[in-house]
């Protein structure tokens, strides 16, 4: 059973709409195939684009000859890096955790002199159909000089490693905002980050037990089912239109304009429905290329990536090397904690070390602490955000060591966590102070849950737990509300709906206006039709765009009150609005429902419409936890999940079904990351398993039902108490599974993915080691 239970501190306020489960507004379109995704866009005269990509992981481009391709009948345009402006400039672009400068974006979408990873684009073709475009790619001759490749983060960090970027020097920062200084040292390390407090040596001296381990995790992909797609049209008036599936329409506008060297205002991005993103669908890989092919051919051009291109050429999540050391006293108090993390950035700087470092020891009170992170370039695709960027990796290390420490101390792992849990007023690893949060309530709910209380019996079985933390950054959103004559309202936003946020935002406007969810019609519009809106990422849409919708609805309320006041000839202060009814305080018989007043708007001064921007500088902290039971087959090393319960402090679940959905979906992705998924490299260093057959994402058969428990400790930063629920669920599963496997077999797994062979080897090694000890 999916349960929504364990509610603690439930606010006295009873909401009418928030917390209910209406049918989502875009639901009928999505179950009937009518919804239009990026791939479904079509227009008369459409050409099809294809991109030629490097077969090498690192090579100098000596020459590109496109003449034969240009002559193929049906080919209308061919472009290479030479067709794009030489030194693109522009503002840094808002990609939530994954900022990047324009020069890097431009080089990443079309290589100039060097290719830096397998799949790096070198040329593109537009033709009358996809098959001709593909044939044309085969006619382009590229001469490469293969260069030595760096594929491992530790190799790349060595002082004598060849430099991937000649000019790259290490930036050093101790600051959570990323302020710091450039060391001037040439290296493949782009950034060195350090969070430090107290005194480690003293802390470890105080400890009775210390556990230290090294961990590695493989590069993994977001695995959204809809591939990257974009259609670009460069109009004869110089205006560019892009139809695409993206989390970040305004970011696509900014980067497309910057890469093409045109003013941002000449680019319009029309967001189509999006088939998954998980952080990965934010950069403009295709849009500027489609636009440039359109400029050259004079026709609109659509480019769709193949699945291989998605794996090879779009940003996955960093592979990593980590080292974690934690000490505690006999009675289970943590005295010191140290974490070292080195993340693969891929071909260009920008891995989420800050995210990993900031969350690392978040669930623990630690006086003496040091976290050191390194952002390292390697010859792999440039990484992108993936759901709680950088955090599953550090959580895997920290929660594994915490578990082992509790085990060595003979303390129940949940008791150990509760004993050391942070609370409001404590410090985050970054030095910020925790606002009100539900970690203790979450851990208590785990402890009191039937799953935890029911003993697990049987051979080769084990139960693992883990707790994950994320701090969500927030951003700005715009909203417009138009009141219709029939008493419904239209809600317009620029936040792409990736998993039901049209509805969760509309519900908040409905709550303010005393309407039903279905009386609000939410629409997501293009970048010309709404104020600037930040990306759909960072668990921020229901929160920030919700805030914008609330502010806008408050303004609509104010305007409606003024109108009622005008009709009744009283001052607005003498009109009350409650439960969808306007009442004159002077003459309580003067009453108008929202619907009745809406019908009179046009005759009494014109329609009511309002726009507002709002948003936050921080959605705030959020915690999730897992209890997972596994059985490990000792013959094969295969893990079967017997039972899985996922917990989260949602603050307030606006639409509980979709909050549960985030928790279940994130847990499933975390399980895939833990057990199956990896970039398996060929000898040359390219990805060998770039299909859904070989890149093993969990299927329905691999997973159990995922029970959910939502705890609701209201977030004071939001009027309804919400937290950002999208990302944190992916954080705890890898450690919870590693801990379950350790309890089942005695072997500590320190390498992701924990695939059968890896587990089998670890179990055999553990057996051999225990034998020699005896």
């Amino acid at each position, binding site marked *: 059973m999916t349960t929504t239970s364990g509610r603690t501190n439930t606010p006295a306020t009873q909401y009418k709409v928030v917390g209910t489960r209406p049918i989502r507004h875009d639901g009928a379109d999505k*179950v*009937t*195939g*009518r919804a239009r995704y990026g791939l479904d866009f079509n227009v008369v005269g459409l050409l099809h684009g294809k991109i030629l990509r490097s077969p090498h992981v690192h090579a100098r481009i000596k020459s590109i000859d496109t003449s034969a391709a240009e002559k193929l009948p049906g080919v209308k345009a061919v472009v290479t890096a030479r067709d794009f402006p030489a030194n693109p400039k522009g503002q840094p672009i808002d990609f939530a955790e994954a900022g990047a400068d324009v020069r890097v974006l431009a080089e990443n979408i079309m290589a100039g002199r060097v290719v830096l990873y397998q799949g790096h684009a070198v040329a593109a073709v537009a033709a009358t159909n996809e098959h001709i475009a593909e044939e044309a790619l085969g006619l382009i001759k590229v001469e490469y000089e293969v260069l030595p490749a760096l594929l491992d983060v530790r190799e790349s960090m060595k002082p004598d490693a060849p430099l991937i970027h000649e000019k790259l020097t290490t930036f050093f920062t101790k600051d959570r905002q990323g302020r710091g200084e450039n060391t001037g040292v040439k290296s493949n390390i782009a950034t060195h980050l350090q969070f430090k407090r107290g005194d480690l040596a003293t802390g470890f001296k105080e400890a009775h037990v210390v556990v230290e381990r090294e961990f590695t995790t493989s590069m993994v992909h977001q695995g959204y*089912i809809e591939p990257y797609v974009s259609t670009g049209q460069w109009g004869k008036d110089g205006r560019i239109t892009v139809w695409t599936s993206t989390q970040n329409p305004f970011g696509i506008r900014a980067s497309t304009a910057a890469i093409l060297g045109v003013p941002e205002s000449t680019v319009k991005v029309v967001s189509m429905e999006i*088939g*998954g993103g998980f952080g990965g669908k934010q950069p403009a890989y295709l849009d500027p290329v489609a636009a440039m092919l359109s400029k050259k051919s004079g026709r609109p051009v659509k480019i769709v990536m193949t699945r291989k291109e998605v794996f090879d050429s779009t940003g996955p999540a960093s592979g990593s090397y980590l080292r974690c050391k934690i000490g505690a006293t006999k009675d289970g108090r943590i005295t010191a904690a140290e974490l070292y993390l080195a993340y693969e950035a891929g071909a260009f700087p920008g891995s989420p070390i800050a995210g990993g470092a900031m969350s690392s020891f978040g669930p623990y009170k630690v006086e003496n602490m040091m976290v050191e992170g390194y952002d390292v370039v390697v010859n792999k695709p440039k990484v992108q955000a993936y759901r709680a960027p950088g955090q599953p990796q550090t959580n895997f290390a920290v929660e594994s060591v915490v578990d082992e420490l509790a085990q060595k101390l003979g303390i129940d792992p949940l008791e150990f966590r509760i004993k050391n849990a942070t609370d409001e007023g404590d410090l985050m690893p970054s030095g910020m102070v925790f606002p009100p949060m539900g970690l203790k309530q979450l851990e208590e709910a785990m402890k009191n849950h039937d799953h935890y209380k029911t003993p697990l019996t049987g051979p080769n079985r084990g139960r693992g737990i883990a707790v994950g933390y994320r701090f969500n950054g927030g951003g700005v959103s715009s909203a417009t509300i138009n009141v219709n004559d029939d008493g419904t309202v239209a809600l317009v936003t620029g936040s792409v709906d990736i998993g039901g946020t049209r509805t969760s935002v509309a519900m908040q406007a409905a709550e303010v206006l005393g309407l039903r969810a279905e009386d609000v019609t939410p629409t997501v519009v293009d970048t010309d039709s709404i104020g600037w809106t930040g990306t759909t990422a960072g668990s921020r849409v229901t929160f920030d765009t919700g805030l914008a919708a609330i502010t806008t609805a408050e303004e609509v309320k104010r305007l409606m009150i003024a109108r009622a006041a005008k009709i009744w000839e009283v001052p607005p202060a003498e009109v009350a609005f409650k439960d969808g009814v306007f009442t004159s305080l002077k003459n309580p018989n003067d009453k108008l429902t929202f619907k009745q007043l809406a019908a009179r708007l046009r005759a009494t001064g014109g329609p009511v419409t309002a726009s507002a921007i709002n948003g936050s500088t921080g959605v705030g902290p959020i915690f999730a936890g897992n209890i997972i039971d596994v059985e490990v087959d000792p013959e094969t090393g295969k893990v079967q999940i017997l039972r899985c319960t996922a917990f989260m402090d949602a603050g307030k679940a606006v639409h509980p079904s979709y909050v*549960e959905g985030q928790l279940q979906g994130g847990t499933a992705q975390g399980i895939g990351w833990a057990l199956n998924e990896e970039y398996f490299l060929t000898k040359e260093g390219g990805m060998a398993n770039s299909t859904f057959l070989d890149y093993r994402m969990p299927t*329905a058969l691999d997973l159990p039902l995922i029970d959910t428990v939502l705890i609701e400790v209201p977030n004071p930063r939001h009027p309804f108490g919400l937290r950002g629920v999208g990302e944190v669920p992916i954080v705890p599963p890898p450690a919870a599974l590693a801990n379950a496997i350790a309890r089942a077999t005695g072997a500590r797994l320190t390498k992701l993915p924990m695939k059968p062979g890896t587990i089998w080897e670890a179990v055999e090694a553990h057996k051999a080691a225990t034998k020699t000890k005896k």
Partner: protein
Amino acid sequence: MADKVRVQSTINEETVDFLCEPRQSLLETLRDVLGMTGTKEGCNDGNCGACTVIIDGRMVTSCLVLGVEASGKKIETIEGVSQPDHLHPIQQAFLEGAALQCGICTPGFIMASKALLQVEPKPSEERIRLWLAGNLCRCTGYDKIVRSVQSAATKMSGERR
């Protein structure tokens, strides 16, 4: 470029004539030739199930079938599942059970579930998971999909009685 071939088949109970290239897949034919974009593309190599349609009662990934192979066949796609005035019980169950987030996998899951319930009106959870193992969903973790198929099955067998 090879000459286009004339094909006649029954799509969602209507006789349809179309021209397609011999190298075009059925998925491409449905989407690009016939403009029926409800059937989705996720991988184009048979491994995601987003393009699932039913051909002569059997569940098939349309990216692995050629358009010309549709000749003389009865094809069901997502566009034909609902009635003019109401959704199919599986579609309704998916909505009520919140079985979709981004929704790109949804048409494929609905077609696969429909094919399952046609042959097995009351499948177990295990059976549903096995049957749907060829359809990838990256958003939901499958929990709500499996439960929605179960609830549709219950409703449909009630209706049949």
